[in-house]
């Protein structure tokens, strides 16, 4: 009886794990390994592949387009990560103090999060429109744009020296503030009220309370958001695809968009795979750093 049950259990465990296990194996580990293998090939999917060793990597490091897209992605990350964290924390804080209607406001802050990146990019593209967009109207109206160089300023969105990237940043940050706000709110509500009560008795100012209680005790949340933000910034791809198609003059050609274009528009599978391996290494470093720091515990409990 017991033996039969044990046998049944064994079979059950195998059957229950196998489907997910096989799928994860194929579409994660095998895919990664395959990607590394393809990165050693010269292959356009039509003619047969040719083994060329590390040549794709060598080519990559001398290709200005690679350095450009690396720079674009880094600049994007450097602006978007701190902005998303600071603005998200700000939203979390005001939501914490707004006890009445909190769930209503939370919903409102979450709407941009759930809409798709394609829709978000298209709406902003319309808002950014140089001649008919409402943003330029407002900027001219309140006097930020004006004077003799007005026509130059109106075209900021098509400017390869930062204008187009700024447009991308607005969309990306806009879409992530609400998410971070909700995460920060959850983190803030987890901090026990008694710390603040004690500080109140000691006569600590609000700023001191924030700096000595909220900030340190929130650090696990902040750290989590930081990692998520960096990874998401490194993967930015759909917004440049829809908003600018990587242009003008590659000024918004992020790493992942560059992979996509090389692989599925130019069919340089090997070269694109080499790029993908590089991006993977970046993300892996950040994930490992996160895991190590989380293990050491960021907070002082």
């Amino acid at each position, binding site marked *: 009886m017991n033996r039969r049950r044990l046998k*049944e*259990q064994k079979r*059950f*465990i195998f*059957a*229950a*794990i196998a*489907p*997910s296990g096989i*799928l*994860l194996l194929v*579409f*994660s*580990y095998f*895919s990664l390994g*395959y*990607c590394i293998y393809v990165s050693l090939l010269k292959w356009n*999917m039509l003619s047969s592949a040719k083994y060329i060793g590390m040549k794709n990597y060598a080519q990559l490091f001398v290709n200005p387009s690679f350095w450009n897209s690396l720079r674009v992605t880094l600049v994007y990350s450097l602006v978007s990560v701190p902005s998303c964290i600071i603005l998200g924390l700000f*939203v979390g804080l*005001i939501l914490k103090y707004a006890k*009445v209607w909190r*769930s209503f*406001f939370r*919903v*409102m*802050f*979450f*709407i*941009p999060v*759930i*809409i*798709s990146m*394609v*829709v978000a990019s*298209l*709406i902003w593209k*319309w*808002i950014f429109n140089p001649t*008919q967009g*409402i943003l330029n*109207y407002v900027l001219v109206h309140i006097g930020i744009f004006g004077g003799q160089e007005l026509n130059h300023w109106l075209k900021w969105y098509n400017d390869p020296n930062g204008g187009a990237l700024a447009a991308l940043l607005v969309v990306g940050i*806009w879409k992530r503030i*609400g*998410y971070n706000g*909700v995460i920060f709110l*959850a983190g803030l509500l987890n901090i026990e009220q008694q710390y603040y009560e004690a500080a109140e008795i000691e006569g600590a100012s609000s700023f001191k309370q924030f700096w000595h209680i909220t900030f340190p005790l929130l650090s696990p949340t902040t750290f*989590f958001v930081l990692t*998520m933000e960096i990874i*998401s910034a490194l*993967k930015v*791809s759909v917004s440049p*695809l829809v908003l600018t198609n990587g242009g003008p003059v590659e000024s918004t050609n992020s790493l*992942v968009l560059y*992979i*996509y274009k090389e*692989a599925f528009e130019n069919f340089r599978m090997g070269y694109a*795979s080499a790029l*993908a391996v590089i*991006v*993977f290494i970046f993300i892996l470093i950040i994930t490992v750093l996160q895991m190590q720091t989380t293990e050491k515990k960021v907070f002082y409990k």
Partner: protein
Amino acid sequence: MKKKKITLWVLILYLLLFMITLLYNFPIFWMISTGFKSSTEIYRYPPSLLPDNFSFDNFKQAWIATPWWRYLINTIIVATIVPILRIILSAFAGYALTFKFKGSKIIFFAMLGTMMIPEETTLIAKYIIIKNLGWINTYYALIVPMIASAFSIFLFRQFYLTLPQELQDAAAIDGCTNFRYMISIGIPLSKSVSITIGLLAFIDEWNSTLWPLIVINNDKLRLVQIALKAFSDDRGTTWNQLMAACCFVTIPVLILFIILQKQFIESVASTGIKA
């Protein structure tokens, strides 16, 4: 004295909150508002906040221009099959991983390890695999690679670990096999985990763009996001129709979100899953 100060502070806080909320959701408002405006009105200077009259012309024209119903159905099919299969497979795998057996730890950590491999970096390899399977331009390409999720398995495992052992023992005494136990007790009990995973998977699939763009080039099998991108490439300057099309694509998720908002936000806040 102190009380008065607090009331004023609360008033300012709420005023600020209202203004920020309005500003933050302005693009959503602008999408809907533009969708109703006539072609002359969208080019008017200064722009009007609300349309002169709410006409559904743009919605009608945008709806006729592209077979949206087909794309919506395609997307609904993919965005419901993936969550359902993901819930079932992950529940079974998560439950099986609560047992201690030889290699259980290795399998568990190997599964978690897949979370460190972002989808974007394996696009090319996955594309080649799908192509070799002959699945380009099929539903399989959209569904099969998305089913398994290490994070969902993890959530289910954590949930099943909290259930009392007595429950399983009692079922075993009654001669209930593990499979029967899962079907009649395990899965029904994990309703909240299932809803969390299902909702997030639904939105993920509804909004997915890069993968369907790569594996589908047959017009009939397009998903809504791709159809929307194609629509915008075709008629990028008729902003009112484009915004109306954006509404078609967004409204189904928006309704689902508003109905299930509490469940939804709480699951995101508690699990911290990417959204």
